[in-house]
């Protein structure tokens, strides 16, 4: 295969930095360009860093000049960072992705685009099938802003993909990641002194171990596939069991009070949950990962339960036998 030139957006995120570092080790990737407004989390040897906001129309030139064949979009924000408004998050996600795609239009060298999207597009519903297949995005109306944003991004991407049959457009629909080195919503939730739950609900949760998140991304860069691919750990875990494994007491709150109570807690500065995360705590969600194994050739190393146990051992230093 000819040498590859890759551009990574959101290289300042943990996963983005790891991906750049990982690709650097492989000589097949002769040029790696990182794009972000934040510096990377680790020192990178040969990644060319460009400080730019993907919402800036100027990135069209950047991509065209870099002559890249593969664009990895890892700039989708799943939860507002401290000091980031919901509005800004929507802007980065939707406008940023749109801007990036139009930049790719102007770059004739682009052969593949890989977006790290979210399985949040399926929502979390009581009537949902126990495993979402890739074709089931429209079973339920979107309920949250993030879900609508992700759906909008996927619409643009599909549209782009239709008009550019020569470009392999891969949409990775990732379940929430968990990992000792990641700062994710689920990790913060389990690290709290007590975990609020919906009284009388114990949903099936499916996660993605940080190592598998990276490996799936690498697999998609190596062998871009057209279409959407679910990315998740094998199997599911009940929320109650997950909290017990983390050694935390759970705090069951009756459904109608959950919003007000956690809202008050957020104002006091203890924990904040996005709407998506709340629905996940109530109804859960799992996806079918057959396509991940068949088409991308990546078999996740961790099951959901093992990913939680790994997190517990590393964060808590508590050693438990793996299931």
């Amino acid at each position: 295969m000819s040498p590859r030139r890759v551009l990574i957006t959101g290289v300042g995120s943990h996963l983005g930095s790891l991906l750049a570092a990982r690709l650097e080790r492989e000589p097949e990737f002769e040029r790696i360009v990182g794009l972000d407004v934040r510096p990377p989390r680790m020192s990178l040897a040969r990644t060319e860093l460009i400080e730019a906001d993907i919402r800036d129309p100027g990135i069209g030139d950047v991509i065209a000049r870099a002559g890249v064949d593969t664009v990895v979009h890892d700039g989708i924000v799943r939860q507002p960072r401290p000091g980031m408004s919901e509005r800004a998050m929507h802007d980065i996600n939707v406008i940023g992705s749109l801007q990036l795609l139009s930049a790719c239009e102007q770059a004739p060298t682009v052969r593949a685009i890989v977006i790290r999207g979210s399985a949040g597009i399926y929502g979390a519903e009581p009537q949902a099938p126990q495993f979402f297949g890739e074709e089931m995005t429209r079973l339920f109306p979107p309920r949250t802003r993030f879900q609508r944003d992700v759906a909008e991004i996927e619409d643009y991407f599909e549209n782009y993909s239709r008009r550019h049959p020569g470009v392999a457009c891969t949409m990775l629909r990732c379940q929430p990641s968990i990992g000792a080195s990641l700062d994710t919503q689920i990790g913060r939730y389990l690290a709290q002194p007590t975990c609020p739950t919906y009284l009388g609900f114990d949903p099936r949760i499916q996660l993605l171990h940080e190592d598998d998140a990276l490996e799936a991304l690498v697999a998609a860069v190596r062998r871009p596939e057209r279409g959407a691919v679910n990315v998740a750990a094998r199997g599911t875990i009940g929320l109650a069991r997950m909290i017990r494994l983390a050694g935390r007491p759970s705090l069951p709150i009756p459904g109608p009070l959950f919003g007000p109570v956690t809202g008050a807690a957020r104002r006091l500065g203890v924990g904040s949950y996005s709407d998506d995360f709340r629905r996940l705590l109530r109804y859960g969600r799992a996806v079918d990962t057959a396509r991940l194994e068949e088409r991308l050739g990546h078999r996740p190393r961790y099951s959901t339960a093992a990913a939680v146990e790994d997190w517990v051992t590393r964060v808590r230093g508590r050693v438990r036998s793996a299931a």
Partner: protein
Amino acid sequence: MTDEAGMQAALAFMRRLRTGLDAGLELPEALTRGAVALPRDARQTVQRVLRRLEGDYTEDEWGFDEEFTDLVEPLFGFLYDRWWRVNVEGARAVPAHGRALLVANHAGILPWDATMISMALLREHPLPRHPRFLVLDWAFDLPWISVFVRRVGGVVASPYNALRLLEQDKLVAVFPEGVRGTGKPFKERYRLRRFGRGGFVEIALRAGAPIVPVAVVGSEEIYPKLGDIPPLARLIGAPFFPVTPTFPWLGPLGVVPLPSRWRIEFCEPIETASYGPEAAGDRAVVLELSERVRETVQQALYGNLVRRGPAFV
């Protein structure tokens, strides 16, 4: 005699528990020490519950929790043996391994019939296994009930779920009458409703799974539904709000099912693999098979009604 021994054991357990707590032990530790006084099986149950509190149990990817199902089995066992005195016929007709679809009539407002089918297999089948149930979606939005249903093997009634379960070579139970069956008035008991559009046949054909018709007699009498209050049903988002001789008059007590006598018959399996998966798109085949299953269940219902005799004695 045994009652007295049981009482003594329970008292000894409580005494040891109190001594342990007074000595400043943590609750789990005190419970473990107290359990020494209990008979062996009770001690094991206490230990199992304690392990579960640590998160030390497994659920499969569907959320089915076999250990939990075993823990609640005594309750269903009581209903099976004493309350409904279930008589089972033809349990051997159910394949011991590989995929199969149980298709049963549905009645009785709450899905007790599903639990009794499960018990019937555990008790009467030479190689028993836990069937998975397709349960009305509504149950999954209810606190506690949703968790319970999931742990004992229930899944949302969706064709995707049924197909995936069958492809994993599981035993799957469906009630094609759905809410039309559970919500029918008492005077129409044991008259099968329409079997939908034959969706269950399509799934069986696609998976090449044999269909086992199942007739359940007795479930119609546990909650004789005399009327319905649609505004109340809409208020709580339920498909119907039943009025029975005991509900809602007796409050929570009205949920106690009446002790009718039950019979469950597993009929000869109907093989579907020879049609091939493409037949799932053939309306004629699907409707014909669906009608054949429905007819089998209906005939078996009539036969068992006669064999059962009076409903309650």
